[in-house]
């Protein structure tokens, strides 16, 4: 139906995009991960596995990697527990308030990430809003230090930032649940709770998985929140990558860590894909 020339010209932009912005950078990254740094701080093109071995042997990397995954897991769970009820309420029960509430959920996305990160810094700091409030109420006598510069602060900040990303796909999938299925379920004698469990929830699983993947992947790769509110105990794997590519000037090791993270993320996407297929085809 379409000529070859037409097909080719349609294919050019995406192929070009993927090549220039994805394949080539990753190929470069891949090469770097097998090179090393000399004592004179130059990159030597001697192919070896040193970087990957170092990654496994030096406990600092694995510790931080696991911490990052724990933080990502916590943010994912929190974002789901916040995002799902919100999406459910908006989709099924908000009625006329739907548009307004939807906008209210979306508006924070328009504010810069940095602004939201700094906002949490002002809230959680020693003379921050939260401590001031607690002391005003005489719940605490002096500032609580662990609010800021802790994994807790990172989880809190990232949950705030990424919950809309979890909310959106869940909301979309809930909006796609045909309402006559809900009526059919009630009609067949299922209570609202049973209807949720047996019809609405199963049909929204694709949205839940998409939302969870968003939250997990975005959190895992985040370096700004730990930088702003994480402190020493809140450092995440991306902070290490950033410093390896920056001050430490060890691009090969940074590349190796990056590729490991890429593998984790791709593996995760693959797993959710399979999980979705299993859950939706009962």
């Amino acid at each position: 139906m379409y000529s070859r020339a037409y097909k080719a010209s349609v294919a050019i932009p995406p192929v070009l995009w993927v090549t220039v912005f994805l394949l080539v950078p990753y190929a470069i990254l891949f090469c770097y991960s097998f090179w090393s740094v000399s004592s004179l701080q130059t990159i030597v093109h001697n192919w070896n596995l040193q970087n990957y071995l170092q990654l496994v042997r030096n406990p600092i990397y694995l510790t931080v990697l696991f911490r990052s995954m724990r933080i990502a897991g916590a943010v994912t769970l929190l974002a789901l527990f916040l995002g799902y009820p919100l999406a459910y309420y908006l989709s099924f029960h908000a009625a006329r308030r739907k548009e307004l509430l939807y906008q209210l959920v979306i508006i924070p996305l328009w504010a810069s990430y940095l602004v939201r990160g700094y906002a949490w810094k002002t809230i959680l700091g020693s003379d921050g809003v939260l401590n001031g409030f607690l002391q005003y109420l005489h719940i605490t006598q002096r500032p609580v230090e662990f609010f800021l510069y802790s994994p807790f602060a990172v989880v809190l900040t990232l949950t705030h930032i990424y919950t809309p990303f979890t909310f959106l796909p869940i909301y979309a999938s809930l909006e796609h649940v045909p309402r006559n299925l809900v009526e059919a379920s009630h009609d067949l004698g299922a209570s609202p709770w049973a209807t949720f469990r047996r019809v609405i929830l199963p049909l929204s699983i694709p949205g839940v998985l998409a939302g969870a993947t968003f939250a997990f992947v975005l959190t895992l790769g985040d370096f700004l929140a730990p930088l702003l509110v994480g402190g020493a105990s809140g450092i995440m794997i991306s902070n290490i990558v950033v410093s390896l590519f920056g001050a430490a000037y060890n691009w090969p090791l940074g590349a190796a860590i990056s590729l490991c993270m890429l593998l984790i993320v791709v593996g995760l996407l693959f797993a959710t894909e399979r999980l979705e297929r299993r859950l939706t085809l009962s």
Partner: protein
Amino acid sequence: MSIAQTQEAQARPPSPEPLLSIHEVVKRFGKRPVLRGVSLEVASGEFLTILGESGSGKTTLLRLIAGFEQLDGGDIWMAGERLDPMPPYRRPVNTVFQSYALFPHLSVYENVAYGLRAKSAAKTEIPERVTQALAMVKMGDFAQSAPARLSGGQQQRVALARALVNRPRVLLLDEPLSALDANLRRQMQVELKSLQREVGITFIFVTHDQEEAMALSDRIALLREGRLEQVAEPREIYGHPFTAYAAQFIGQTNLLDAEVRDGIANAGAIVWRCFGLPGKIVFSLRPECIRLTVSGSGVDAPDVSIARFRGRIRNQTFGGAMDLLEIDCGNSQVLRARIPSPGPVSGEQDFEFSAKDAVRVRPGGEE
């Protein structure tokens, strides 16, 4: 339609105790009234059709019985129990939806088992009842299929089984056949009717198709702009429509504006005997009540129980067994007649009809 008509003749008479009582039901969407005081009683085991045009409120009435909408006035009772305050999942009714509404993530078997599980039927009982219900609609071989793999007609059967397996007091059917093609539709009509007789469950069937309504129903409730126009058996409503609207909506008809005086109705060129109140009256005359007569016969004998008139044939449409004639009677009055195929006819002809076939109706038909 003919098969269903013979079946209708065997229909059991509705029992006198109403199973479902709808009393002065009012429903508004915003400020727009959809139902303006509808009262209706449905007997146990009856096949009642709610017939109406789109926007007449028929689906809304059904949804009120199912519990998907809240009443703005009136009440609904079932077997002496107030139905309208109950949430839909407590009502002993089940619905067959226009779009089937099968659960896409569940197999055919699980769809049918859904209601039984929801009401926590005994675990041992479920497989037997599901299998039985699927066999009843001839879908036993598809138990493990996904609904998306079924054709429209098959999905319709599953939807029926899913509702009937719960043994509802009343089954509500919302234009269940409208998505099917004409042949399948006729076949499903026959099956639906025999199924209803087999299970003995009260069916309330919503449709805009008057032929379907006549073929299936023990009684038809004709709804017009949120009010019941007439509730009667199909033969009754066809033979004795209360209103011009009912006469026009159910079957085809001719509306005659006549002046009734001294026991004679006078509609321009046509005159016939008519008892009852005098005045300006609208009559409904079915096209098949008009007969073609041999020219000149019986004109001398003034028998006013037979109306005779002469008219010019404007148009003849061949219809197999019955032809449709358009007869110009003068005074810009055109009558339609359905006549057993007379062969080609044209020009001025003599026609007659029995005076009793011209039925008085209240005016106010559709435009």
